[in-house]
């Protein structure tokens, strides 16, 4: 789960990590009131969306699609500018390199007091799956795209791993500060901040915290000028407060609905719907459809606890996609029995009004019975016993392929 910059900064503030004063706004009036209250002549007017590259993004009019403004993060030095930028941002579509061409409609704004910047740094904490621990990465090249830094000047990135049992050591904190060339009060400020941040990461079950840029002010304080925070969804049971930070408009509605039915669904651009048990097999099914000249319309794992209700929900979700011209069901029965799936398919197709070609591949537990159930029904269905045959059949059935 991702949260907005303003929400991440509120968590930073609670954890004692320095941020500038700022106000979350949803209207131009609120933005002007915020400007008046902040008492800083220069403020940053920042679009709040769950995607990076906002500064270099472009805003398009929500209705006409015309370009309204270059840059989703603007520095304003007067009330008039705040008004201009806020009205250009709110309600319009922000397209960045991470949003895709459709961009995202901006409903939230953050107005933040300006800051005297001596230098910009990069800082991130994430789970290092190869080292099985939390990795801290810092760089003197702040404000830059970190992947570009990693590519061009890997020596500019310094790393430290948090000990899973003992936390981040004092020597590690000091070494990170040294690696950024920090001295005096800035060194002390960094050491304090990184300790608090590592504690916050673990305490809140984050999966990533990125601060780009982290700045050293003229006064020698380290301030988080941006925040990108993601949480580990598996740990949500420990953090019920997260529900209040959720921005539903940032989530794919269908994916959320699928999850409630115990399904894991990701929409893609093709025309062959897939319904599979198991994540790896679901990916493999998409791959094989492609190998046979088709294009998968979705990833869908019905999970190990599938039943008639979830299978019906799965058919419904697949068929909501207007691009879908055919469906491939691929089940390798283990705990799930193919005959149960077959009966669920028959019921589900009646319920949702299945009107596209259907190919079902059964293997594993009760696959023979499953096939019999389907073949003795009125349902128009092609059954196969291997994935390759299934993919070939569905691609053929919709008139695609080579």
């Amino acid at each position, binding site marked *: 789960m991702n949260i907005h910059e303003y929400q991440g900064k509120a968590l930073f503030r609670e954890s004692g990590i320095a941020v500038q004063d700022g106000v979350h706004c949803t209207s131009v009036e609120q933005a002007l009131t915020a400007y008046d209250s902040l008492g800083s002549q220069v403020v940053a007017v920042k679009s709040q969306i769950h995607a990076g590259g906002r500064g270099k993004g472009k805003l398009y009019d929500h209705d006409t699609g015309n370009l309204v403004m270059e840059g989703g993060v603007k520095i304003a030095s007067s009330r008039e500018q705040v008004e201009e930028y806020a009205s250009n941002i709110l309600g319009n579509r922000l397209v960045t390199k991470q949003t895709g061409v459709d961009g995202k409609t901006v409903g939230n704004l953050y107005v933040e007091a300006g800051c005297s910047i001596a230098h910009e740094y990069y800082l991130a904490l994430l789970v290092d*799956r190869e080292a*099985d621990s939390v990795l801290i990465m810092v760089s003197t090249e702040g404000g830059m795209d970190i992947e570009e830094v990693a590519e061009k000047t890997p020596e500019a990135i310094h790393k430290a791993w948090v000990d*899973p049992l003992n936390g981040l050591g004092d020597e590690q904190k000091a070494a990170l500060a040294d690696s950024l060339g920090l001295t005096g009060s800035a060194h002390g400020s960094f050491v304090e901040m990184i300790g608090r941040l590592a504690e916050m990461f673990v305490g809140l*079950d984050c999966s990533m915290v990125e601060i780009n840029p982290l700045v050293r002010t003229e006064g020698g304080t380290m301030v988080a000028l941006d925040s990108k925070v993601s949480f580990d969804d*598996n*740990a949500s049971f420990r953090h019920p407060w997260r529900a209040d930070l959720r921005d539903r408009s940032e989530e794919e509605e269908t994916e959320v609905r699928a999850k409630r039915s115990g399904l894991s669904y990701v929409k893609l651009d093709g025309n062959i719907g897939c319904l599979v048990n198991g994540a790896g*097999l679901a990916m493999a099914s998409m791959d094989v459809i492609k190998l046979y000249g088709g294009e998968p319309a979705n990833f869908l794992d019905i999970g190990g606890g599938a039943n008639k209700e979830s299978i019906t929900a799965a058919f419904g979700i697949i068929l909501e996609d207007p691009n879908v011209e055919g469906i491939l069901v691929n089940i*390798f029965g283990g705990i799930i029995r193919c005959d149960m799936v077959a009966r669920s398919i028959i019921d589900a197709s009646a319920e949702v009004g299945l009107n596209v070609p259907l190919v079902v591949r059964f293997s*594993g537990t009760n696959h023979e019975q499953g096939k019999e159930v389907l073949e003795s029904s009125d349902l128009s269905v092609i059954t196969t016993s291997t994935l390759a045959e299934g993919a070939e059949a569905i691609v053929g059935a919709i008139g695609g392929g080579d």
Partner: protein
Amino acid sequence: MSIWVHEESKVLVQGITGSQGTFHATRMEEYGTDVVGGVTPGKGGQTVELPGRTVPVYESMTEAVSDTGADVSVIYVPARFAASAIIEAAEAFHKIRGGGLIVCITEGIPTLDMVRSIGHLSDKPGVRLIGPNCPGIITPGEQGGCKVGIMPGYIHAKGRIGIISKSGTLTYEAVAQTMSIGEGQTTCIGIGGDPVSGTGFIDCLAAFEEDPETEAVVLIGEIGGTAEEDAAAWAADNFSKPIVGFVAGATAPPGKRMGHAGAIISGGKGTAEEKFAAFEAAGIHVARDPSAIGQVLLGVLIEAGLRES
């Protein structure tokens, strides 16, 4: 021979009184696994009926391991308690027998809980963890065998192919592929698709290298991370037997989690193409279609002089 579990393995079930625990303990015992007991805190002293035997429920892993001499434990406890169950098992095996195998089936464990669990394993070299979020490990026998997990036992047969996979049902697919060319398995291991987990591809390959009965390996990876690339590089220098490899997710879009927590292409890294390329560079025989694993394996066995046709 086989790796890590065999017909003599004595298996405990953590969470044996829960519905999942009882269901799978029953299936495991039916297959031929020697299920010697279980652990559920608060239910010590009770018993559980399995096919043909009644097994004791213990209050703690320490008690259970001391009393039964078990060397394997399989975990079916809910996600929020699973990391503690791993640590409890690791400490009991380490203290009482100097080691043991822990197989964690549970899905949805918080990542930082797993980081802590793995931290607890670092000073217990005799303790091995498989999983979490995996189907488990199985060594088919002449009759029955040792099944520690949730896979359908009957699809397997004793043979000479080792199977390692990040995925559940795709592992079964690989098993079915070996069976389609008349080959059985020494041991099949599902290592799970979570970002932080125990045993990895290289650990499995190293064990298969040492196992005289394993003559070839099928390795199934998926997008995300660099475990496949690391395994390929390791195998190129250290593995003498043929490997057939497949990677799921060639059509997965970047930035989207494909079911498994670890199956995500992020920052342009972890793509199937990179992994296939690493396989090819390491001399691993690639199957682009999982339905072709059997045929690729057959060709490899013939080429290696391990089969006539």
